[in-house]
């Protein structure tokens, strides 16, 4: 954050911050299909992005985005589970083709259509398994208006530097609720530079990596042949059954994301209180309740720490180390099944890990406090 030099209080929603941030970072196309509770993002995307195109469904949405991305554009969309489910195969395609794009996934109550106007945190495990083969797709989770601003730009940066689709995970209450907010506190967003292959060379291979990421060239240039494919392929982009070079390429896709996300793009907030043996852990909308619960308990003289993961997937290995340092850990997540906990610990939660969940309503700070103090 910049040093506060003024106080520009506005009543604003997270959707506006997300779209403005993405646009400043260089997103130049919004492809949309309307779905509640992502409609404000669609509205703002259409007002702000250089190009807005209304797609007839969510499969088309990601296909159009992939086509645009292949020409050098940086497309964005916003959806919720029913739409995202349709996108799954096309997200796999863009991942395999290594085409940058950002998908803002606004969680709502499921399963299926569920309740469109009710928030939830039910999609983390879905995202963890969205890629066939178990490859990780980068997922960043917003937990505040500051995150809506800074992480959105980061999502686009990851998409470009790692040549991958990136999911920005949020939820209904984060993008639709209006709050007073001082916009003079917002950090400056730098435009992401999309580097292209140095054209003076003559042996361009579309999937030959430099530091795990291949150099990009758009299909709009006529100097070098570009091949892109969703099928298993070699460095030339030629379909292969399972040649060593092609399988090495498939392995590289995994390594590329795991390496960058645990180092360059590791984002979390750990507010450790000296002497605290208890830790409250929450991401997304439940982080709001967690912050309030910790503020209240500290005012009452309790020692308690706060951990807000923001890089959600692939789950950074350091998270297990962080939560292992406390005698009691309370995880708050708006679902019935502790998805973050199961990613951290598998099927059997250690006894010192407590879960606060909810269905159909936000977790309240008192519920977290009760579990911390019990």
């Amino acid at each position, binding site marked *: 954050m910049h040093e506060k030099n003024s*106080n*520009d*209080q*506005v*009543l*604003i929603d997270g959707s*506006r911050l997300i*779209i*403005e941030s993405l646009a400043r970072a260089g997103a130049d196309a919004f492809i949309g299909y309307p779905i509640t509770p992502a409609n404000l993002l669609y509205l703002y995307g*259409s*007002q*702000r992005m*250089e*190009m*807005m195109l209304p797609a007839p*469904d969510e*499969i*088309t949405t990601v*296909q*159009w*985005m*992939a*086509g*645009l*991305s*292949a*020409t050098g*554009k940086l497309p964005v969309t916003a959806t919720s589970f029913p739409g995202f489910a349709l996108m799954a195969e*096309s997200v796999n*395609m863009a991942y395999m*083709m290594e085409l940058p794009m950002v998908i803002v996934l606004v969680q709502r109550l499921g399963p299926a259509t569920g309740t*469109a*106007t009710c928030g939830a945190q039910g999609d983390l495990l879905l995202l963890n398994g969205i890629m066939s083969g178990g490859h990780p797709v980068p997922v960043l989770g917003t937990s505040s208006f500051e995150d809506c601003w800074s992480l959105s730009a980061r999502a686009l940066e990851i998409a470009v530097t790692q040549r991958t689709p990136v999911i920005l995970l949020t939820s209904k*209450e984060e993008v639709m609720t*209006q*709050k*007073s907010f001082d*916009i003079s506190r917002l950090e400056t967003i730098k435009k992401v530079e999309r580097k292209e292959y140095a054209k003076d060379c003559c042996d361009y291979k579309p999937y030959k990596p430099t530091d795990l990421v291949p150099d990009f060239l*758009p*299909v*709009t240039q*006529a*100097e070098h*042949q*570009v*091949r892109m*494919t*969703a*099928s298993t392929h070699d460095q030339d*982009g*030629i*379909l292969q059954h399972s040649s060593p070079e092609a399988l090495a390429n498939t392995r590289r896709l995994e390594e590329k994301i795991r390496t960058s996300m645990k180092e360059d793009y590791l984002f979390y907030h750990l507010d450790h209180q000296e002497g605290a043996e208890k830790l409250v852990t929450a991401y997304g909308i439940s982080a*709001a*309740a967690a*912050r*309030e619960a910790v*503020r209240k308990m500290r005012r009452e003289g309790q020692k308690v720490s706060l951990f807000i993961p923001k890089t959600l997937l692939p789950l950074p290995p350091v998270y297990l180390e962080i939560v292992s340092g406390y005698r009691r850990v309370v995880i708050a997540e708006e679902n019935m099944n502790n998805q973050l906990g199961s990613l951290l610990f598998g099927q059997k939660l250690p006894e010192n890990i407590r879960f606060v969940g909810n269905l159909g*309503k*936000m977790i*309240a700070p008192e519920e977290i406090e009760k579990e911390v103090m019990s």
Partner: protein
Amino acid sequence: MTGSMIKLQNLPYCKGCGHDLIAKNSTEALEKLGYNPLDVIAVTDIGCHGIIDKCLNTHTVHGLHGRSVALGAGISFGTGSKDQKIVVFVGDGGTTIGLQHIMEAARLNLNVTVVVHNNMLYGMTGGQSSGLTPKGFCTTTSFKGNPFTGYDICKLAHTAGARYVSRIMGVGNITEAMMKAFSQEGFSLVEVMEICPSYGVKLNPRRKLKEIVEESGRELGEWTNDLPPFLDRQEEKTANLLDKTPVISKTFNHQLQQPYSLVISGSAGEGVQLAANIFAKAAMSADLHATQKGSYPVTVGVGFSTAEINVSPEEVLFHGISVPDVALITSSDGLQHNRQRIERMQQGKLFIDSSLTPPNTGAEVILRDFRSVGARNAAIHAILYLCRQTKILDESSVYHIIQQEGKADKLPLDKIKKAMES
């Protein structure tokens, strides 16, 4: 880069397959039209037709089964006015699963040429019937003949608005027909009729392609629409979304010592969210932090409309409200939606329209005819009355925001003031 569009020495098709002809004559057509290989973006997908990529010297993009038209559409949006040719190869199976993409590209008249390789069945996966398989044609899933009529993709694309559509037989030399399709400005589609040598010929012995096509009722020919090609017409854009949210400057004072929560609820279309928005901004003008959450059913114009507002001297970290300090209820819909939490109120105040029966509650009940100023103004009336009765906000801060938001002329403020005096 100049030179041949295709490497002819290793085309991957079965002997007698029409895909071979399409590959050769399509590339020849593009060469004759003067395109260099890298002026062409060939988009293919899953199916036998799609394995042509490695033989092409063009740019190649190989996507998902049936999605190549949508992928090609995305590329065409990105190439804009560049003088590049986007050619999409798709099979009859891909046409079936991706029908919507073809309709959309035709409707928008995108600068794309789609070549449908219609060999009347799914060749790569074992000879199953597709949506384009003609009635009576035998496949591995209909040995007695397909019982259903196949889609007429030419008719569909033409009806959707395609600039140019043609159906041709995949025999002889089809270069000129392909040249015509490639020369169109806007969306063009060529359906090339073929028979799969591995399944179609074997399962339909002694039947000729020409006869099958004729019996299916599919005419050969061309169909055109005199419609302009796609032009990207973007509405006027805003340069900064943050400029659209007015900065609320501190103009008033407050006496609030602790967080204060308010629920205001009425019926959709009765200005509940607007009133809540004005209240939240009025609080901000008094240097308070504020949150405003809206709740409503999925239908926009009927049912309840509820707003939850928090105002506080310090930052509101959690904006959820279980039991509010104050509830303002202006209609029956609003009461129904909030009845339970009003019943849970042990203290605080319930301001409720006098037409309603208050539920049992520990809150102090204030009955008031909020709707006397018209249902659409009941919510703002209630907000102003709340301020007058509780002094939670300076009443003039609400009028200040109404003025600032340009709503003064749209609300019957004199009428509301008069009603408040009564």
